[in-house]
């Protein structure tokens, strides 16, 4: 997994729960990499998952809730750091529809070895759209947090439901978005 997810996660923990908790997670999980993450490096995704589990234990909170919260945080960080790139998109559907064929293409230019999730967007009708998430990692909760923040960012009148797809372990899910008004 690309290091930017790790560095952003550590920053998320520091800003939400403080430096002591962030340090605790690294000490407690004793990652093989030593925890000296750089945004441009690549690390074992298991190290991130171990820290999430430890965080859930420390904060007595469910893992999905924490991962979703990280997803919310990650969206705003993306906007902070890559605002000009994302400024071309004016609605949730436009942005979600561009992830696979535009945003991921740009990511691969910088990180050719990135293992990105496969996202399929489909505009069902004027009011309804669908985003399918498929990954080798069980991070559908992270995707949900990102979608949630996207809708909030654009202020779109959209509600969505998530349907976990087999094997229902968070590696595959379908998000059905419905506009409540046009």
């Amino acid at each position: 997994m690309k290091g930017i997810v790790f560095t952003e996660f550590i920053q998320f923990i520091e800003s939400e729960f403080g430096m002591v908790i962030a340090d605790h997670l690294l000490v407690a999980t004793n990652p093989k990499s030593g925890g000296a993450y750089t945004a441009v490096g690549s690390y074992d995704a298991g190290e991130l998952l171990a820290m999430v589990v430890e965080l859930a234990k420390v904060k007595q909170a469910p893992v999905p809730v924490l991962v979703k919260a990280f997803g919310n945080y990650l969206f705003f960080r993306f906007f902070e750091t890559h605002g000009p790139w994302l400024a071309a998109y004016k609605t949730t559907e436009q942005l979600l529809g561009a992830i696979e064929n535009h945003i991921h293409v740009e990511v691969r230019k910088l990180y050719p070895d990135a293992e990105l999730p496969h996202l399929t967007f489909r505009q069902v009708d004027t009011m309804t759209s669908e985003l399918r998430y498929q990954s080798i990692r069980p991070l559908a909760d992270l995707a949900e947090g990102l979608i949630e923040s996207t809708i909030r960012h654009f202020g779109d009148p959209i509600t969505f439901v998530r349907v976990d797809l087999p094997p229902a372990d968070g590696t595959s899910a379908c998000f059905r978005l419905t506009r409540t008004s046009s």
Partner: protein
Amino acid sequence: MAVIDELVAYQRMLSRERAAREVAEGLLEQKSRELYEVNQRLRLTSATHQREAYYLQTILDVARDGIMTLTSDGVIEKANASAASIFDCKAGALVKRSVCDLVESTNAIRPDHENRFFVDLCSHARPAIQVVGIRDNGERPEIELSASSGQFENCEIIIWILRDIDVIQKIKRQSDLSQRLEGIGQLAAGIAHEVNTPIQYIYENMNFFADAWHAVDGALRACEQHLGSAPELVDIIGKVCSKEELRFFRSEAPIAIEETKLGVQRVAKIVAAIKEFSHPGTEEKFLTDLNVVVESAATVTSNHWRPVAELKMELDPSLPHVACVRSSINQVLVNLLVNAADAVQERNQKCARDQGQITIKTRYDDANIYLLVSDTGNGINPDHINRIFNPFFTTKDVGKGTGQGLSITYDIVAEKHGGDVEVDSVLGAGTTFTISLPR
């Protein structure tokens, strides 16, 4: 306690950040190296592509056949120099033109389907076809066209390969003409052979008649002297032939016999020349007396030069025999004499004179035998002098010259005999061709 925990956490964070920075710097160095190597590979690939592009462009530039690529609707995208040359226009001038403007279509093709027709030529591996080209100057060259197609970046690309077959057709016509001339030569040889025998005995008989007449004339003269002693014989002879008639016969018969002998001698000479000229073609070289070849060629071409020029021959009697293909040297001399006669005739007309002069000389030195054919014709324009040995180059009127004579002459002398042809010409004064053949 909490403060100490936080301090410890800060220290560890600082240590991790330092480590992370070192890793990041290492990664940066690694990426820089990778970038450099990729750039090097890119330069190499780019140079290879440029070389290949140049290589392909060179092939296109030097190809003798015209090569064009068309869009599927018959518009030319690229055309090489040979293609431009076939249509007699500048390189690049063909681009964006429709092939319908450059090639005549058949009446069976409706105008709105012309493009499709030309493009479809390549669709089913058709053999090459002949089409008629359209040049901007109105000329209509015959062109052999073979077409093929392929896919380039998801678009159909049509390739036309064009060959100007006008030159090939001209050579074929010349070859047909040569074959016909060869047939005529064989016929002439046969006729000469058949005529030769009766001419021989006609000549011998005329010799006999000349001798016989001499005897008869003597007898008649004796009779005449003694007619006074036999008056009855005068009456008898007078009934058969008057005295005046007899005198006329006696004075004219020797002249008639002599003229007949001269005529027969001339026919015999022509027959001999025809036999000489139509000698069975062989590429083998034999020691040959070129003076004989000159006389033969002069006789055969006499109908060309006699009306317009006096022929002067300065043949060296000590000329050594030279190894040559006799029939080919015959042809060379005939070509030069016919050209000389044409040049003199043209000059005669220009300066209103009756006769010019053609001179044939034979000479030799240690290395070569020389044949010089000079005329007092028009001379050759200096602008043309470098092109006179090119195939099909002619300044004669349409239908009069094929432009092959001097080209063949050069080929025979230089290629077949290792000799040389030199030309010395003064415009308005005349021309001398010097043939040198190595001894």
